């Protein structure tokens, strides 16, 4: 199926494509927003924006990837409007390993983490992911759940490649700490 080919009925062409991928889009929106109501709003906003720009969509190309890009942009922009950068510590206060906060996954006596992590129920993983601040959660989500490359994530969020690498790493460190030390909220 291609999109935009029917100039006489662009809405019908758009709707046919949108409906086909709606469950996937809603799933991505739910993972980003973490609640059903916001996921519906995000999906709706995304589809409205996508419809407005539908003439820019090239028939035969990946509609889902095109709309997904719009969805991530819509979400990131909405977060940028409402968020303020959280303050951190001064140089006199920064501990040696600021991000790990004393968590050393390589310390003697650690359990084989890969075994523990592989056996975790989805609900526990989802809760741990949901608890991450957005700066870390979105890159981890895009990398590990949506399976995008660092370059694609950098382009989608509009941040440098090194920031993507760092945020994924730091997000994972927080996840590991939460999942292996049992601090995931109920």
């Amino acid at each position, binding site marked *: 199926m291609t999109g935009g080919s029917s100039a006489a009925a662009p*809405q019908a062409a*758009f709707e046919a494509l949108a409906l086909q991928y709606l469950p996937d889009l809603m799933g991505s929106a739910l993972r980003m927003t973490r609640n059903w109501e916001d996921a519906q709003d995000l999906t*709706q906003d995304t589809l409205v924006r996508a419809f407005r720009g539908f003439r820019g969509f090239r028939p035969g190309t990946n509609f889902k990837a095109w709309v997904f890009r719009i969805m991530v942009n819509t979400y990131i922009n909405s977060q940028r409007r409402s968020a303020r950068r959280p303050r951190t510590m001064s140089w006199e206060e920064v501990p040696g390993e*600021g991000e790990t906060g004393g968590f050393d996954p390589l310390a003697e006596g650690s359990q084989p983490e890969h075994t523990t992590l592989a056996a975790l129920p989805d609900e526990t993983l*989802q809760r741990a992911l949901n608890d991450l601040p957005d700066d870390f959660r979105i890159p981890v989500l895009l990398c590990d759940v949506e399976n995008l490359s660092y370059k694609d994530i950098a382009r989608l969020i509009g941040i440098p490649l090194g920031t993507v690498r760092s945020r994924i790493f730091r997000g994972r460190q927080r*996840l590991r700490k939460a999942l292996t030390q049992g601090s995931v909220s109920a």
Partner: protein
Amino acid sequence: MARHAASTVGPHTAEPGRQEARLGQHIVSLAGTVDEQLDLLAPVFGAALASDCRCLFIADRTAPEAFTSGMVRRGCNTGEALASGQFQLLTSDRTYLRDGHFDADRMLDTVGDAIEAASEGGWGGLCGAGEVTWVHRGIPGVDRVVEYEYRLNELEGLSSAAIICLYDRERLPKRLGTELRKVHPLVHVNGTVAGSSEFVMGATRAAEVPLVEDLEPPADQLPCERLSELLSAYADGQVAPSRGDQIGRHLRTCSRCRREVETYRALKTSLTGLRTASGVDAGFWVKVRRQLGSLASPD
């Protein structure tokens, strides 16, 4: 203490041979010698001190004593300001290179906190200059130095600071020099400060800011605790091929790092399992269709 915010930290009217730095500016200095660098800094710091700005210098290639005496010889008495606390003289090993490596995020927080502290302290702004002349020394984390410079432009509070990043032109790899001009609005070279025609900001530009991997030591020569971030990227298949080979060599002999990679892969596999589609109720789709209908046709 300042009673009002200063808009400039240099002379309001630029005089021949004098340098000016305004609050909100981010300048890269590509000076070939320490003297050329001090010629830039003395009038800038002198004006900043006169404007009740907090001043900060991070020394790397210049010994702190040589900096102070160089300033005094050029008519800027930083000694008095140091005693009063208006001027702070730090070294790279306590700032950029704390714990022996460069952490771009940590340093951005540090600069942000210094700007905030100057504001909360009632100063007219912050005038900070730092020698980034350690980039040639194979410091772990140096691959993110261009990203750090780019993100300084987006720093909250930059409008109340003037930041001067001092590099050693004689030892600067050509590629790094080109990238630095792209991420600094102003460039100091050959004794003058001018706008950089290559400077661009924006989301598209952000994604193009490179990692400068060739400045870092080979991955298999890094201590394990400095490898973690690279191992996370390695587990994703997101490191350059040459780095991947180096990490692969290290993993053959290091069981701790192998476990680390296995852990990232296990986490990735588990998270990928969350990628399920969600159900959509019919009422939602009706609502979307109605809104699309009200838009008539795509733009």
